[in-house]
C-alpha cells in the first residue's frame, strides 16, 4: 500500500498518536490506514418475496383510486343506480366493521376504549350531515368549468397517493393530508353527478374506500397475511375488470403499472442494493442515543 521507506529498525511501529514525535515522514501511510473503515453497517438485506408482499400496500391504494374512478364513471353515465351502490356499500361496511373486531378478538377496541355507541353516533352524525349538505355539494362547483374539476380531482388523487402512509418513516408522509385530498377530489367529482342523491352516495363511498378500507387492510395485513394477499389479488382483479369494461387500453396500462410496482421494482431494489456503499468510521458525528428530555421534565 505504501511506497515510503520504512526506517530500518523493525521494532519501531507506527502509532496512531499525535503527541509523540515518530521517525516517519508526515505523509507516511501505514498498513493500518483506514482499518477502522466500516461499510454498510446499517444496510438491510431484503428478501424478494418479502418486498413483493410489502408492495401490496401500494397496489391496494392504486386499486382503491381506480375503483373509485370506475364507480364514479358508471354513476355519471347513469349505468349504476345510486340505491344499489348505497346498499352494497352499507353491507360491505357492516361486514368490515364486524371483521375489524373479530380479527384481533377485540384487542384494539379495548385498548382504544371506544364504545360501539360512539361508533354509531359518529356514523349517524356523518351520514346526517352529508345528506343534509348534499344539495349544497351538488351546486357548490357549478360556476367552475368541468375541465378544471377533472384536473383538480386528478391532482388531488395523485396527492393522495403521494402522501399516503404506506408504512415508511419519511417526512413527506401525512395521512391527514392524504385523506383530505381524496375527500376533496370526491367532493369535486360528486358535484358533477346528475342528482343530489348521487352526490351524497359518492361522498359516502369515498369515505368508505379512502378512510375505512385502509384501516381494515392494515389490520388484515398484521393478523392474517395470507388472507391479505388473497384480498389484494381479488381487489386488484376487480379493479382491472372494472377498468376493462370502460377502456381496454386503460386496463392494459394499469395492469402493466401494477405488475411493474409489485414485481419489477422489488427486483431493482434488491439489485441496486449491491451498489450500496455507505461509509462509516471514527470521523462520524456521534449520535446521542439516550432520551435527555427526562432531565427537564
Amino acid at each position: 500500500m505504501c511506497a515510503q521507506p520504512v526506517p530500518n529498525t523493525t521494532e519501531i511501529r507506527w502509532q496512531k498518536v499525535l503527541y509523540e514525535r515518530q521517525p516517519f515522514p508526515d505523509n507516511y501511510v501505514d498498513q493500518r490506514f483506514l482499518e477502522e473503515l466500516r461499510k454498510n453497517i446499517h444496510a438491510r438485506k431484503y428478501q424478494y418475496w418479502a418486498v413483493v408482499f410489502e408492495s401490496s400496500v401500494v397496489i391496494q391504494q392504486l386499486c382503491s383510486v381506480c375503483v373509485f374512478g370506475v364507480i364514479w364513471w358508471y354513476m355519471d353515465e347513469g349505468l349504476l343506480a345510486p340505491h344499489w351502490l348505497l346498499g352494497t356499500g352499507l353491507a360491505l361496511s357492516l361486514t368490515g366493521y364486524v371483521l375489524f373486531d373479530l380479527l384481533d378478538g377485540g384487542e384494539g377496541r379495548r385498548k382504544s376504549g371506544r364504545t360501539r355507541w360512539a361508533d354509531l353516533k359518529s356514523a349517524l352524525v356523518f351520514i346526517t350531515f352529508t345528506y343534509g349538505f348534499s344539495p349544497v355539494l351538488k351546486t357548490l362547483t357549478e360556476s367552475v368549468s368541468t375541465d378544471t374539476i377533472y384536473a383538480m380531482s386528478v391532482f388531488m388523487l395523485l396527492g393522495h397517493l403521494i402522501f399516503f402512509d404506506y408504512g415508511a418513516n419519511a417526512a413527506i408522509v401525512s395521512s391527514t393530508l392524504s385523506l383530505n385530498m381524496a375527500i376533496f377530489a370526491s367532493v369535486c367529482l360528486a358535484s358533477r353527478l346528475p342528482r343530489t342523491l348521487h352526490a351524497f352516495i359518492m361522498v359516502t363511498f369515498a369515505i368508505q374506500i379512502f378512510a375505512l378500507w385502509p384501516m381494515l387492510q392494515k389490520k388484515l395485513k398484521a393478523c392474517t397475511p395470507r388472507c391479505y394477499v388473497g384480498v389484494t389479488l381479488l381487489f386488484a382483479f376487480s379493479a382491472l375488470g372494472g377498468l376493462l369494461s370502460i377502456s381496454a387500453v386503460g386496463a392494459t396500462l394499469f395492469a402493466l403499472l401494477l405488475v411493474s410496482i409489485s414485481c419489477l421494482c422489488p427486483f431493482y431494489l434488491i439489485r441496486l442494493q449491491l451498489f450500496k456503499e455507505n461509509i462509516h468510521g471514527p470521523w462520524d458525528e456521534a449520535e446521542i442515543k439516550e432520551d435527555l428530555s427526562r432531565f427537564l421534565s
Partner: protein
Amino acid sequence: MAYRGGGGRRHGPSAAFHPVSPGRLFTCRTPTHNICMVSDFFYPNMGGVESHIYQLSQCLIERGHKVIIVTHAYGNRKGIRYLTKGLKVYYLPLKVMYNQSTATTLFHSLPLLRYIFVRERVTIIHSHSSFSAMAHDALFHAKTMGLRTVFTDHSLFGFADVSSVLTNKLLTVSLCDTNHIICVSYTSKENTVLRAALNPEIVSVIPNAVDPTDFTPDPFRRHDSITIVIVSRLVYRKGTDLLSGIIPELCQKYQDLNFIIGGEGPKRIILEEVRERYQLHDSSKIRVRLLGALEHKDVRNVLVQGHIFLNTSLTEAFCMAIVEAASCGLQVVSTRVGGIPEVLPENLIILCEPSVKSLCEGLEKAISQLKSGVLPAPEKIHNIVKTFYTWRNVAERTEKVYNRVAGETVLPMDKRLERLMSHCGPVTGCIFALLAVFNFLFLTFLRWMTPDSLIDVAIDATGPKGAWINQYPYSRKRGRNKTR
C-alpha cells in the same frame, strides 16, 4: 509603525533576516518561500482556524519566509493591515454569504486575487478550512495562474446526508489537482482522503499546537471544592445536550461538586433550564456558573480554577481545548470521537462513550482519583504536555511540505483538464473543466488589460528582504492578538 520603505537601505542578501533576538533558532539552509495564506476565517473572528493561521504565519516569518494573509473584510476592518512582526493582512471587500463564508462564483475574486498574487510575488498558496469558499476560490485561481497550492483541512465531515454528498464532491474537485494537503489528525486524514478520493501520499498530518506559555497552571487559584470546567461553544455538535444530563446526575450525587461553564451558543438555554429546575444557583451557593462568551486570553484564568476538564464534543478533528486544559494541569475527561484519542496519552485523559452514563462514570473515576490523591500535580502535567505541541514544530513540518511542493510541477492546463475529467466523474468533471477553461480565458483577458509587468511590486514586510523592524523583540508576546 515600524515600517521603513525600500530604497538602498535594505538588508543585504547575506543579512537576510531580522536582527536575531534571543532564543530564535533558524538557519539559512532551507530555501525561503513567498507564502499567501487564504481563508475566510481570520481575526477579528475567533476560533481554531484563525489562531492556527496566525500562529503558523508568525512562526514561518520567524523562520525567514515571507507570509501574507488574505481574508474578507470584517465590518469596518478592510484594506491592508499589519499585525505583529509585519504580518500583512489583506481584508478584501467580498460579500459574506453565510457563517462568515463568502459567496463563490469561481470568477469574481480572480481580478483581486491575481493582483495580490502578482504584487506580492507569491509562490505558494496555502488555503485553510473546507468551509471557506474563498479558500477554494484561491486554490482554483492559483492553479490557473500556475502557482503551487497547499490546503489544510481543519474539520471532519460525514458521508450520510445530501449536503455532505454535495460538499464532498466540491472538495474532490478542489483537491484533485492541489499539490499537497495537510490534515490536523490521522482520523482527519482518513476522512479527507475518503471524501476527496485522494492519494494518501500527498496528505500530511501536522497537528495543531498550543502555546504552552499561555496555559500555565496556578494551583493557588483552584477552588476548595471539586470543580469541573467546561469551555466550548454551547451548540449541538459540542454535546451541550449531554451536559444537561450530566450536571443534575452528578450534582445530586456529590454535594461538594461545582461546575464552571464558559462559552455562548443557542444551547445555553437548556443549561439555564437545568440550573433552574434543580436549583443549582441559590444565592448562598452557586453550583453551576455560566460565564457566557470568553475571550481567548481569559480562557486560562477560567481553566486554572478547576480540577477536571470536561469535553462532550460529538465530533472533533483535533481538540485544542483538551490540550489547553491539560497544559493548565487539569485532568481531562472527554468523549471518544474523531481525532481525540490521538491527542493526549492515556494517563492524561479519561475517554468515554458519548452518553450521559459513560461520561458520568468517567467523571466519577476522575473525582475518586482526585480525592485519593493519585493524580499527578498540575505542574507535572504541564511539564509533560508542553513538549507535545508547539507552533515552532508545526511551522518546521509545514516548511517541509512547502519545500516538497516547491520541487513539484504545477499541472499545465491540458493535464489539469484531463485530471478534472478523469477524477471527478463524467458530469462534474466536465462542468469544472469548462469552468477552468473560462477561468483561464478570463485570466488571459486580465493579463491583456493589465500586464503583470505593469502591476506594482509590493515592498516585502517579511521574508528575506523584509523591511519590517521589530521594535519590541520579545516583550510584546502577551499582546500578540492586538492589531492596529
